[in-house]
């Protein structure tokens, strides 16, 4: 069976199964979630594929490229990448080399998109062209003197500054943020325990004149801000919200929140912070309320999500939510209303 025919067949099978099993329920008016001016309609069907053909172990992260395509990173080595158009149609699938694929960051450098993939099992960061060709690899930072073996290095996320500096969050390893120049030379390391615990995500905040670095300390339920040189500036307390990576879009920060409340399994939602760092909406969660002690502890309200691991925001402000440990499912789309 040709590649294209296989894809068409897969979609027909998938849609047919959905039709038989779900009947009209999946076509009923969607649930609206979120708060204030950040409300969304839930689309469970977006990007649905046949798991036999396009298996997903964990749907870890998602980005949109300069062609408007949505790239989902999975840690299934039959297809580390699933590439969709905005309608949820699969355009291509590729990638067999990343059993621990975890973080996916896209940076347009001189008009060309590059993908930065972290692999927690291969203990390295890979820079790929949009077609998947490896152009640079950052191995474990032995030269830092902070690591005794490659296995101690489990990078979870990358952020790339406009000057080419590469920031790697070692969120499952020793909790350092490692800064490299564009050629992959280690410049510095900062963070580490105990100040940073589960430094899962990193992003560059360009909403103000001077860019800063946002780092999620997931275990501490904190979003930390640093200068680009690693000086700690502030903590944004998000009690009850176990946040994965910050995604800066327009004047907001979006954070997939993998667990909530007491941290139990299956309790995820999405956190949306405004320019001041206040949570203004929590799709799938309770309404955020600020009291004398700041944000009241957050938790899931409705079981829309299991374990959201990343949010991708498109130019229409729709969200695509990739999930870890969610039965090998595909992203959920939240349509801005």
């Amino acid at each position, binding site marked *: 069976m040709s590649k294209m025919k296989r894809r068409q067949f897969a979609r027909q099978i*998938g*849609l047919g*199964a*959905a039709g038989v*099993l*779900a009947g009209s*329920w*999946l076509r*009923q*008016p969607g*649930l609206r979630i979120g708060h204030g001016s950040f409300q969304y309609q*839930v689309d*469970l*069907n977006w990007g*649905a594929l*046949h*798991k036999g053909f396009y298996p997903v172990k964990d749907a870890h992260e998602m980005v949109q490229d300069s062609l408007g395509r949505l790239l989902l990173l999975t840690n299934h080595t039959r297809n580390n990448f699933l590439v969709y158009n905005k309608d949820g149609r699969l355009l291509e699938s590729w990638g067999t080399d990343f059993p621990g694929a975890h973080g996916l960051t896209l940076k347009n450098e001189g008009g060309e998109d590059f993908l930065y993939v972290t692999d927690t099992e291969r203990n390295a960061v890979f820079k790929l062209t949009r077609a998947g060709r490896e152009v640079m690899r950052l191995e474990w930072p032995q030269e830092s003197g902070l690591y005794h073996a490659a296995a101690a290095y489990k990078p979870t996320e990358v952020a790339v500054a406009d000057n080419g500096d590469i920031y790697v969050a070692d969120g499952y390893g020793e909790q350092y943020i490692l800064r490299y120049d564009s050629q992959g030379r280690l410049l510095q390391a900062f963070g580490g325990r105990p100040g940073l615990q589960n430094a899962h995500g990193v992003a560059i905040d360009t909403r103000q004149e001077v860019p800063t670095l946002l780092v999620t300390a997931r*275990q501490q339920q904190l979003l930390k801000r640093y200068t680009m040189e690693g000086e700690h500036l502030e903590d944004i307390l998000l009690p009850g919200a176990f946040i994965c990576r910050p995604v800066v879009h327009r004047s907001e920060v979006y954070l997939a929140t993998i*667990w909530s*409340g*007491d*941290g*139990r*399994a*299956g*309790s995820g939602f999405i956190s949306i912070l405004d320019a001041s760092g206040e949570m203004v909406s929590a799709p799938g969660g*309770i*309404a955020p*309320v600020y009291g004398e002690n700041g944000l*009241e*502890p957050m*938790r*899931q*309200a*409705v*079981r*829309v999500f*299991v374990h959201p691991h990343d949010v991708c925001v498109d130019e229409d402000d729709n969200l695509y939510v990739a999930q870890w*440990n*969610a*039965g*090998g*499912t*595909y992203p*959920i789309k939240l349509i801005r209303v």
Partner: protein
Amino acid sequence: MKSRNSILCCLVLGAAMLSAQPPAIGHALFQLSPPAVNAPEPFFEDSTILEVLRGQEGTLYRYATVAEGLENATVVKGAVTARESGTFYFQGFHPDFQPSPIEAVTITDVARALTIRVALGQPPSSSYSGKGAQALSNRARGGLQFRTTPDEWLGWEVGTLRLQIYFEGEELPGKLMLGALDDTAAWIFPPKEVSAYQGGRLIGRWSSRPADKGQLAALRLLDIPLAGATAEPIELEVQAAYLPDWHDGAGQRAWIFLDEVLLFPND
């Protein structure tokens, strides 16, 4: 189709089959989240309170001391005061959503509990060593998310764990309770079996039942009646469970996470 959709459809279909009414249209595809119940003192000596925290707007919460028929149970209005050991079951209801899963909260009157000291036969994993053996006798529970209450949980990845329990006072023990974490997603299961010995003589045993796929994480308090106990120290033999067929790690050994040992005298 998506397995998520499969799961949701199964939930809806299952609910529809169990109910005389078809599922409500609209949002009824989705389920409310479990009630968030705050129990600040699960081990108490006089009375304790349970309060349901804010959830989805418009949700009505009900509770009872049995897990069935909660749709007609007492409506939660403010904090619930409890004066006896037991398990309280809470559930949320909303016209636009499937009822929430039932949240069970166990509270235990420890006024008569014996003063004990626990010695560890094997050290816990260095990653989950809590504040040592004293965590097992400080009358404080760990949280459901073990990483957020790291002092209270001791975790072992062993086949058989042994604990020695020394107790004070004139009264002889009649019951032992063992606090364990049940978090199948994290590969943490209650023990397969717990046996209590004195001088090599079996005085009590507890066996687990198979874990259900998809069950929510829970704090378990294993109840082990002791027969013919004397004043000698008690040796606990804790056998680890193995991950069941439905689990991603099927066949591998589960972790044991313990947070408390309670010893009660004969009534």
